């Protein structure tokens, strides 16, 4: 005799126990990681040497053409070669990163857990050129089902953002900023919906930017992503679609966009601590072809 199996009851949502959302500035994190790898042109060689468990030094050589902004439609490239020296200190509570280039540019980043929920982040870029140096402080507070951030930067830059989990899958947030030097203010809103299989996010700002992204997690190793950036002030729009294969020995990412630009990025693990990198970007419209290869040694 057939027994009647009652349909499964829908899970009751406890709205007082929602998960903590991801930080506001990482709302498009999955799409960004899949669609925007660090493309480069020419040769790149990175060597990281750990001196002890917390402290490491890095040496990086980059040789290749660098694009220079030009008024005409043609791309102007200047061959450059740079050596960058870096030092990293990584501790559960404090992280310090410093980099200096042969042309005198210094960049520094600090991340410090002031308490269990409060984090201080600071970053600075210093150059020889006047008025081109920047610095910024961020204070991040993590609540039970919300996050908030306060920013303070040079040039009178003040900013704040807040993001709240509204349901177990949906989080909504907003931001406001004031650029004192330029006497400009701005407002923005963001929304993110994620399940085990997909992540969809959208952001709109009063600066004219609209950004939408969608990532489908096909399996643990494969993700497909698409994004669209539209500026309603300048009426400029770009959409791209790509894939991200994370395999045992390599990671392959590729994409194509609506401006006729295709790109791919491969990181192959040749041996423990030895990675081979290939980068390619082909812009058919501008007839701009960029190919790069490199090696990364050390973790």
């Amino acid at each position, binding site marked *: 005799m057939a027994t009647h199996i009652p349909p499964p009851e829908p899970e009751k949502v406890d709205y007082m126990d929602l998960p903590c959302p991801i930080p506001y500035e990482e709302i498009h994190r999955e799409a960004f990681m899949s669609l925007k790898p660090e493309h480069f042109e020419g040769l790149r060689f990175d060597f990281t040497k750990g001196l002890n468990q917390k402290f490491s030094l890095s040496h990086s050589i980059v040789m290749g053409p660098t694009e220079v902004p030009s008024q005409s439609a043609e791309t102007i490239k200047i061959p450059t070669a740079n050596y960058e020296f870096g030092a990293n200190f990584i501790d559960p509570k404090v992280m310090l990163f410093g980099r200096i280039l042969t042309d005198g540019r210094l960049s520094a980043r600090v991340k410090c857990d002031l308490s269990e929920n409060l984090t201080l982040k600071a970053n600075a870029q210093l150059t020889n050129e006047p008025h081109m140096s920047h610095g910024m402080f961020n204070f991040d507070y993590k609540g039970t089902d919300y996050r908030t951030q306060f920013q303070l930067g040079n040039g009178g830059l003040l900013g704040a953002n807040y993001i709240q989990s509204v349901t177990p899958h949906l989080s909504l947030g907003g931001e406001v900023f004031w650029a004192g030097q330029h006497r400009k203010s701005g407002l923005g809103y963001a929304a993110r919906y994620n399940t085990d299989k997909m992540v969809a996010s959208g952001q709109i700002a009063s600066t004219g930017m609209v950004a939408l992204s969608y990532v*489908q997690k096909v*399996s643990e190793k494969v993700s*497909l992503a698409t994004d*669209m950036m539209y500026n309603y002030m300048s*009426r400029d*729009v770009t*959409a791209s679609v790509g894939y991200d294969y994370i395999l045992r020995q390599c990671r392959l990412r590729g994409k194509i966009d609506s401006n006729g630009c295709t790109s791919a990025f491969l990181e192959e693990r040749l041996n423990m601590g030895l990675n081979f990198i290939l980068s390619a970007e082909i812009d058919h419209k501008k007839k701009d072809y960029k190919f790069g290869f490199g090696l990364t040694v050390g973790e």
Partner: protein
Amino acid sequence: MGDALDKIKGFWRSQVYDEENWATNAKLLRAVGLFAGSIILMRNFGDLMAI
């Protein structure tokens, strides 16, 4: 009713038959089509890309 229809027709002509506007609108349509089409393909046929 006639005025509203004329306004709509005027707007349509300015967006489709004007060269500059059409170039921007075609770019926008291409991008939105790529974005929306990708989402539909991913959701329905994404499993074919699994390894």
